[in-house]
């Protein structure tokens, strides 16, 4: 028996015609059943300021989801002036330097570099690359910009994006040429090819396990709090467990009045503003709590996204955005979550797109906070050295629509619990 205000869940289905004159039935998102929304203005703070504690670099010179600015790939390999005379000792430190975009070890096993400490396997094992018969020019250009040899590569263009200088690449090449025997792993866990696939065993809906469930108590209190107009959510929706039993599983949705995709968080901002007057901007604690709650009420329901023509078009745009190379490190979403899925990047497992959407918003133990899907998008961008967009950007809506289609049919289980 658990005390603490967790909703028991009612089985009765109700048609509610409340004080606000709205009939709520199934969620067909039909034109004649449009919820009141604040259509003017943004749904998040402007100017958008990056979260405190996140890397502060401005990455506007690189591609992001709403503009293209990275230089194109070089047309061909660079010719070298002569043989490479780099410093292999310096090179062995450079390849393990985690301040330079994760270090080579994020993707490659590289012999003794970095102590063979938990390297990844997104890229091939380079421990014996010194025996592969590569020329200095090939070594140099692979590091400088691997696209000249493989247009489909996920490898960052370390030289052409200016992360490493030519002299530093020479040092790394000198080190690579010394690699002629298998990596001296200290334990089998260090070997990415022997590491067992991680399995999420925690019960995310156990209140003793998931601190994220405390936000439900908070949301239930907010539900009854009167806004500036003297009304609360409860004034129109007095039985949320029944009314919203499937709603969140039908989101995100195409909103014709705004000509963009709305996720739950932005819907909450605009609907609250237009009804109770509550100001629950995206990426505030109140908004996140309400998003967790509305998803929680539809737990167990299969994700069933809007498939009307404009929603499908949004999903197509989202798919294209998921394939766009972004940031200084030049990664597309699908580079990690498609081409490199089921591989290790350093000590982190890369998952396929399917199954990523059904547990958001999620509690993040490393952050001691709830994160919604838009904040997760933002972090992915900043982490690969691209500027994030404001959370209510239409590009994030398209991306969320695409991500939801990849989890079509999976059952909601919110809040999730992750690292």
């Amino acid at each position: 028996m658990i005390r603490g205000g967790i909703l028991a869940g009612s089985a009765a289905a109700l048609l509610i015609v409340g004080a606000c004159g709205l009939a709520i039935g199934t969620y067909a998102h039909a034109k004649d059943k449009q919820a009141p929304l604040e259509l003017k203005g943004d749904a998040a703070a402007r100017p958008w300021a990056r979260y405190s504690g996140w890397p502060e670099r401005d990455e506007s010179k690189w591609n992001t989801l709403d503009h293209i600015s990275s230089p194109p790939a070089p047309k061909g390999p660079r010719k070298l002036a002569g043989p490479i005379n780099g410093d292999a000792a310096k090179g062995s430190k450079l390849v393990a330097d985690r301040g330079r975009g994760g270090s080579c070890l994020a993707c490659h096993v590289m012999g003794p570099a970095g102590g063979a400490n938990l390297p990844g396997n997104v890229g091939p094992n380079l421990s014996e690359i010194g025996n592969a018969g590569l020329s200095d020019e090939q070594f140099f250009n692979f590091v400088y910009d691997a696209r000249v040899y493989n247009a489909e590569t996920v490898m960052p263009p370390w030289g052409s994006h200016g992360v490493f200088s030519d002299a530093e690449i020479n040092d790394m090449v000198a080190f690579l040429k010394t690699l002629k025997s298998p990596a001296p792993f200290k334990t089998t866990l260090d070997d990415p090819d022997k590491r067992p696939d991680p399995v999420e065993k925690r019960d995310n809906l156990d209140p003793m396990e998931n601190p994220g469930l405390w936000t439900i108590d908070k949301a239930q209190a907010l539900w009854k709090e009167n806004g500036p107009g003297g009304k609360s959510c409860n004034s129109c929706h007095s039985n949320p467990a029944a009314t919203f039993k499937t709603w969140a599983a039908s989101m995100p949705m195409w909103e014709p009045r705004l000509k963009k995709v709305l996720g739950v968080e932005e819907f909450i901002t605009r609907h609250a503003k237009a009804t109770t007057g509550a100001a629950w901007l995206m990426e505030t604690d109140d908004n996140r709590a309400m998003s967790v709650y509305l998803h929680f009420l539809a737990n167990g329901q299969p994700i069933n996204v809007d498939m009307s023509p404009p929603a499908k078009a949004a999903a197509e745009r989202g798919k294209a955005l998921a394939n766009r190379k972004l940031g200084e490190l030049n990664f597309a979403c699908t580079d990690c979550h498609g081409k490199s899925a089921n591989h290790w990047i350093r000590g982190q497992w890369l998952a396929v797109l399917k199954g990523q959407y059904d547990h958001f918003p999620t509690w993040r133990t490393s952050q001691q906070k709830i994160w919604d899907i838009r904040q997760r998008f933002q972090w992915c961008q900043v982490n690969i050295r691209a500027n994030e967009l404001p959370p209510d950007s239409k590009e994030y809506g398209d991306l969320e629509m695409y991500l939801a289609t990849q989890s079509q049919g999976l059952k909601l289980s919110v809040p999730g619990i992750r690292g």
Partner: protein
Amino acid sequence: MAERPRLKIPSEAKKGELIEIKTLMPHIMESGQRKDKDGKTIPRKIINKFTCEFNGKPVFSADLEPAIAANPYMQFFAKVEESGTFKFSWTDDDGTITTAEEKITVS
């Protein structure tokens, strides 16, 4: 708006039965070891003591140190011989004491 501690205790037990008690206390448990982005140490703020009594008699207590992670979870056993009330307390570094209680019927 403060979150309430979670308790998991059987509502009924047999006389002499060993029951398992689980508690979860919402708390940041700031260790005092972390630094903010300007390099300043974030001050320590933890729950430093947890107690459990049954019908006024001590059952279990613990002194917590900064290594305990956020939202401290305490799980322990108690032998119940009579019906009554478990009372729990959590003491913050700043002196604030949070309490919770739960009844059990023992037959």
